[in-house]
């Protein structure tokens, strides 16, 4: 068991290391460097030299990678091209705001998704299931900018209940974003809920058809007890990984939603940085998002390993 955990952990570390190489090499391979990209047409003469000096671009790539990586491990990503601000500080603020959105969507969405998934799985092919499953396909597949636009049209333009755009500045206290963050959370929550619900539904259907649920029925176990004791623990185990993937997606890929609502989160910062060609900031965000992704998946794997008695003995025996 311990050796399996160590192995899984090492794999995570290796993945993060490969990510850092990809990010660094990817930026290196782009034509020009951070300074020519940022200064664009002004990139000549003294200004360029000065910029390169400030960003330490005059050193050989391997050395630059090492010092960048060493800084990244300590949470220091250097300074941004534009404002000479510490990247870590800038990003930290945005991470907090993105996290808030993600938490909002998770707290509301995950329990709802599991509940709906279980309900539709148990009473599959009934009208309720058909209705909810069709709804889930819509929620899952309609692009976020469309669902966001529809919600804005209905709830903020026609009904005027909630603001459709965020105007609070990024450095304002978190509570100031109420009620502006309601719509973004609803949009994110819808997509996420639909994904998890579908997965849970399939899993429940599979377990409901299993021999052990039939056996429990024929043992005279009341229906409610079958669901809670025999179906749920087995059906929800595989859901852990899907929840993890959705969490990782929420933390990293909600660019479109942040752009639609003008929400000053990490995603918008990323697009802004790319538009400004502020490559050090892009590198930092990429690194943070990728590491989060790896960590969340790692946690999910370890959790499944611990919660699933079958896997647990498998690994114990492997030892």
């Amino acid at each position: 068991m311990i050796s399996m955990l160590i192995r899984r952990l090492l794999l995570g570390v290796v993945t993060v290391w490969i990510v850092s190489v990809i990010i660094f090499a990817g930026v290196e391979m782009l034509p020009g460097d951070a300074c020519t990209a940022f200064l664009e047409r002004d990139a000549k003469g003294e200004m360029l030299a000065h910029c390169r000096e400030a960003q330490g671009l005059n050193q050989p790539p391997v050395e630059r990678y090492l010092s960048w990586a060493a800084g990244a491990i300590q949470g220091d990503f250097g300074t941004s091209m534009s404002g000479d601000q510490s990247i870590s500080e800038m990003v930290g603020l945005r991470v907090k705001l993105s996290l808030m959105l993600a938490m909002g969507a998770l707290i509301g969405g995950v329990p709802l998704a599991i509940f709906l998934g279980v309900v539709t799985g148990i009473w599959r092919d009934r009208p309720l299931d058909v209705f909810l499953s069709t709804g889930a396909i819509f929620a899952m597949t309609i692009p976020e900018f469309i669902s966001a636009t529809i919600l804005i049209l209905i709830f903020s333009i026609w009904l005027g209940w909630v603001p459709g755009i965020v105007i609070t500045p990024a450095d304002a206290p978190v509570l100031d974003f109420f009620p502006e963050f309601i719509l973004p959370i609803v949009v994110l929550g819808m997509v996420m809920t639909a994904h998890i619900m579908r997965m849970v539904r399939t899993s429940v259907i599979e377990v409901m058809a299993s021999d052990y649920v039939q056996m429990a029925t024929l043992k005279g176990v009341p229906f409610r007890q079958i669901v809670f004791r025999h179906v749920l623990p087995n059906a929800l185990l595989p859901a852990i990984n899907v929840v993890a993937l959705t969490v990782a997606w929420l933390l990293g890929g909600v660019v479109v939603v942040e752009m639609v609502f003008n929400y000053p989160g990490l995603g918008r910062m990323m697009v802004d940085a790319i538009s400004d060609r502020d490559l050090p900031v892009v590198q930092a965000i990429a690194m943070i998002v990728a590491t989060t992704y790896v960590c969340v998946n790692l946690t999910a794997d370890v959790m499944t390993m611990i919660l699933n008695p079958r896997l647990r003995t498998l690994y114990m025996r492997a030892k």
Partner: protein
Amino acid sequence: MSDMAAPGIPRTGRLRRMGTVLRDMAASPSGAIGLTLVVAHLVMALISPWIVPYDYKVMDSGMVLSGPTGAHWLGTDEFGRDIFSRVLMGGREALLVTGIATPLAMLWGGMMGILLGLAGGRLDEVMMRVVDAFLSLPWILKLLVLVMTFGNGMMVIIPTLGFFYGIPVIRVARAATHDVVARDFVSAARARGHGRFGIIKRELLPNVLDTMMVEGAMRWSWMLLAFSSLSFLGFGVSPPTPDWGLMISESRVYMPLSPWGVLGPMVALSSLIIGINLSADALAKAMGIDRARKAVV
């Protein structure tokens, strides 16, 4: 019951099998709706330039942001252009780009996945870490960096989408390969002494292909989503080319005055993506694959 042979007409050949699969798909209402939507969109993309009532770039300053009228079925946009004509033509670019990039992604991702699945060992393990690393980066970052650097021409977007969307395919193809390789008929072919290439072609591919078809349909829908998101963010198609994502983003500002500018393209894009997803579900069902069990990557 499983022991009974299905008495019936012998059907063989890939074409005939595709025929039965299509029939099975169309048999369920959702599959029929999905297929109809997809086919309708494809046909429209092909013929729209010849049937649209107005030129998509002709502006009419006297008819700005009008609602639906007899002349303009969906009204006009902020420049007085006919929304209906623009909606009809708005999927052409997206379908063309994804139509080329999807097979590209499936091809390279599929081949890579099958090879890694067969090779196993150290190489497989290292490559899978690289795949993980690529997957851990947000898609929009990967696309945007390249588009911002090299421009938004089709020669940039198609290979970029093809490359990045092929990476998750590696995983799927590799898993499917592992499933098939573990089965006795592959062992039987190995024991008979068939060459590696022959085994891949005859034993592996026909069985991996089903999974790949379903996967391809899903990749297509996600690629469309990515492409229209790029357009929506202003990094994809350049104006005045009609594109649903771009149209929504341009008309959003005028929503309080006239919602028709966003409604048209929203319905068009959503119906296409939903159509693809419904078809993918029906396809998976007809082929006996459980689509929802696949992880969302």
